[in-house]
């Protein structure tokens, strides 16, 4: 949130005084073709060496420099998000990040029609992430990348690596061929439940590859329009989860909504509850008010936190989405729309801040509780 905070920010090159330990739910380690190539089986490795990655993505210009913060590029050269030491210095250490959930990049593989190649690439991303990131910093946790366009292969990948203690969720892009409540995806949810992993929807790949157009009205020209359309796609997934009865079929499934904004959820919850009163008879398996399913099963991460014209509106919308139970902080480091742990959100009341910056994520991901003595 853009704020008019009175206090002048500390010089950015000074070490932060941040004491509150935080859990950052969305950090992007690079996981592009160059990084994962060694982890591909020979057949695909030879093909990508000869022809390139062969998956969609990049239909629009991104923001920032190559989609990243301009100062996240290692000074010695190299790509943003590729250097653990820089990530530690610039983000993890500086802001007292107790745990960081890695969400990867290159979800284009989830929009290709070649299911077997998608599955091999997802396995390569997961193996690379485990070896190159998770084993090198005990604060980091991983997300299982899956070929979600072929749910049986996706379930196989979840069974392959999802039982590891350092893998804490399953991740998919927002762009999809069918809304995620559709029973087509049930094998994925069965596997999530088997391994007690949340199913996390991260924006991206709307309208690319085999995925449906980025808006119900068709394709848009500019990246900024795509960004504005993302909440409607995510809203469709959320309504689909609730009204197709996924949470009745899978009572322990948790879903995380990532990077499509936060505050628009409030009027959607009101709308779903309102429509349900008159239309419940058509979906009688939906036993509770839709907003109750949201509260119980769905979590949402902060970045990019919506800018509201005044604080009172911000606070009342947070109340409306039960932020004390459902909202989890994330930065999106090192992407260009990074939300600083110290300055993106306005100052929250202590109890709420503890929930948003730590407790909600610790409970969801089974991470150790906050060390209270570290605060101050």
């Amino acid at each position, binding site marked *: 949130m*853009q704020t*008019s905070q009175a206090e*002048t*920010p*500390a*010089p*950015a*090159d000074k070490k932060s005084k941040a004491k509150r330990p935080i859990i950052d739910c969305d950090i992007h380690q690079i996981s592009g073709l160059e990084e994962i190539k060694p982890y591909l089986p020979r057949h695909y490795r030879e093909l990508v060496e000869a022809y390139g990655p062969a998956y969609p993505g990049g239909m629009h210009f991104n*923001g*920032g*420099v190559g989609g990243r*913060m*301009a*100062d996240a*590029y290692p*000074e010695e*050269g190299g790509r943003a998000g590729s250097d653990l030491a820089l990530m530690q210095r610039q983000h993890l250490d500086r802001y007292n990040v107790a745990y960081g959930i890695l969400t990867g990049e290159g979800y284009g593989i989830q929009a290709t029609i070649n299911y077997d190649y998608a599955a091999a690439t997802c396995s390569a991303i997961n193996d690379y992430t485990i070896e190159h990131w998770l084993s090198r910093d005990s604060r980091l946790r991983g997300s299982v990348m899956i070929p979600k366009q072929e749910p049986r292969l996706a379930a196989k990948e979840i069974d392959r690596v999802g039982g590891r203690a350092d893998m804490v969720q399953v991740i998919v892009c927002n762009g999809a061929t069918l809304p995620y409540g559709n029973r087509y995806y049930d094998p994925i949810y069965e596997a999530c439940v088997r391994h007690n992993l949340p199913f996390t929807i991260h924006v991206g790949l709307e309208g690319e590859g085999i995925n449906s157009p980025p808006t119900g009205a068709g394709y848009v020209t500019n990246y900024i329009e795509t960004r504005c359309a993302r909440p409607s796609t995510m809203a469709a997934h959320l309504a689909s989860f609730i009204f197709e009865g996924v949470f009745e079929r899978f009572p322990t499934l948790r879903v995380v909504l990532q990077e499509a904004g936060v505050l628009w959820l409030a009027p959607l919850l009101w709308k779903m509850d309102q429509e349900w009163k008159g239309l419940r008879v058509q979906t009688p398996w939906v036993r509770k008010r839709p907003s109750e399913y949201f509260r119980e099963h769905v979590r949402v991460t902060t970045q990019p936190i919506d*800018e509201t*014209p005044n604080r009172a509106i911000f606070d009342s919308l947070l109340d409306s989405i039960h932020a004390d139970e459902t909202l989890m902080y994330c930065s999106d480091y090192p992407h*260009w*729309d*990074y*939300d*600083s742990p*110290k*300055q*993106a959100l306005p100052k929250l009341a202590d109890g709420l801040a503890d929930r948003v910056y730590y407790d909600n994520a610790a409970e969801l991901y089974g991470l150790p509780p906050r060390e209270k003595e570290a605060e101050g």
Partner: protein
Amino acid sequence: MSATERRLSDSRRPDSAESMRPAGSSDKRFRAARVSEIPPGSRKIVEVEGRSIGVYNIQGAFHALRNVCPHQGAELCKGLVTAAVVSSGPGDFRFEREGEIVRCPWHQWEFDIKTGCMVVDGKVRTKSYEVTVEKFGVSVEEDYVMIHL
């Protein structure tokens, strides 16, 4: 590496400015750098009284900006220096005031180096955010660029 990236990654440690407070002067003046260290089109980040400050040379005139973005605190002066992009309609891009605009390295908000004000398309954003960057007076004395705090 592109020219842009090279420019962006030029982030050597800031040098400390030397205090030079002439008698009878109300503002404090600090040597930021030798004039020859900041040729036209370049900038240098210095530290003055605990503040990190970017000193820019735009066609021979010096300007100093606080190296903190008022949005979320990024090191603003590490951002790309470029032009203001204006347009008469879709597909038309024109570049004005070349070298006078710095784009924040994080969210790419644009600031006018000469005034410290945010460059915006509409009044709404200006009103909501009331963004300015702390700006300091600058003079040149005996080959030194001086910052007035």
